[in-house]
């Protein structure tokens, strides 16, 4: 009995949303309501996730496990951001500076480290993957894309050279389209399996 309730909820919700692609005007308010509920639930799930993170780090400190100092740092930063956010609100200039002046340097620096890692990975590309059709095509395509991005290759518009370079520049679109089609087919199959109750990820 319980299983039927879950299945009915999942299938009915999915069918209403799918019908919204065809009967947008007629189902507009209902769709809006369903989406509002979904956003609320997603927000609640996010809060539960953060609470779990908080609990995990708190337990680490209480049990004095390895890395308890870093857990203390996490909790201290968390509580500071939380209390400041509730008191000052996200619209406050100081609060915005606080968040952005921590997030931007850290995330951008992590990206900067990625640049060095990619450089090292490029050096070892053939050593690790060997000479295969995919690795060879990968290498040639990467070098060509970089050369085109440099702006050194300049041709007059309308010439054969320009059109050939444009053709080379468009070659990645062929593979990208195949990848997008494959992803869409896979997503569609997974979604259909859920709506047809073949898969029930919400529990048995």
């Amino acid at each position, binding site marked *: 009995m319980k299983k039927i309730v879950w299945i009915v909820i999942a299938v009915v919700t999915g069918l209403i949303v799918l019908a919204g692609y065809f009967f947008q005007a007629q189902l507009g308010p209902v769709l809006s309501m369903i989406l509002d*509920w979904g956003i609320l639930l997603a927000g609640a799930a996010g809060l539960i996730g953060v609470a779990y993170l908080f609990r995990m780090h708190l337990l680490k400190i209480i049990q004095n496990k390895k890395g308890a100092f870093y857990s203390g740092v996490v909790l201290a930063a968390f509580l500071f951001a939380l209390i400041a956010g509730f008191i000052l609100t996200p619209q406050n200039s100081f609060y915005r500076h606080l968040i952005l002046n921590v997030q931007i340097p850290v995330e951008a620096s992590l990206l900067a480290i990625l640049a060095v890692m990619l450089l090292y990975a490029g050096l070892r590309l053939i050593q690790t993957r060997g000479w295969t059709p995919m690795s060879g095509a990968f290498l040639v395509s990467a070098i060509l894309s970089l050369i085109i991005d440099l702006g050194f290759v300049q041709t007059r518009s309308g010439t054969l050279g320009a059109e050939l370079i444009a053709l080379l520049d468009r070659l990645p679109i062929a593979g990208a389209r195949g990848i997008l089609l494959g992803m869409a087919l896979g997503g569609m199959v997974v979604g259909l399996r859920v709506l047809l109750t073949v898969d029930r990820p919400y529990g048995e």
Partner: protein
Amino acid sequence: MSLSELIWGGVGFLLTVMVLSYLIGDNFFFRLAAHLFIGLTAGYLVVLIVHHILYPYLITPLATHSWMEALWLGIPLLLILLLVLSQIPKLAGLGSIPLAFLVGLTAAVAIGGAVFGTLIPQVRSLIDAFDPAFWYQAAERPWLRIVDSALMLVGAVTTLSFFHFGRKWRVDKKEQVVERPRILEILSKVGQIFIGITLGAVFAGVFSSALLALIDRIAFIVDFIAGLVGGGG
């Protein structure tokens, strides 16, 4: 350099140097910066969810709408309560209902987006590329457009054939066979080349973005030190 610029710049400078120290190896400063980032972001996320989701979608309607209209909010409230209670191990089964709702919603959105947003338009684009009107749109070199269209079709088909969507059952031996028809294997080999071309372009793009972030960080450090020196001098 004003005081606020000095303070925020100093914070940014310190964090940048601490994170970039990872180039030497994992160390205390890198971990300190990373954990500080995690804690701050988690706290901000809670504030964001409360201000941008709970408040406008739940609290404000409850406060401003009539009780008849507010009854509609009973359903999401109940679902949220079930989701929270499901965190208790004994009541884990209660989370199935809100999960079923979310799964149904997400599956439908995914199907609609995949079919109407990608599959149909992209296949139509592949077919339209063989429209003679498109070939002769430009005055010169229609053959180049034909070659271009053919390459797009071959690339898409061979890339798709590289993905393995199912297995064949050999009825007589009652076993799963992973072998595919030879023609698919040949197409798959060609598809690998097109996938390699696409991933190579993506790799170049990823490096470009990361390079720009590094340039920006170096410029920031240089500007901050110059500002300190210039401001002090």
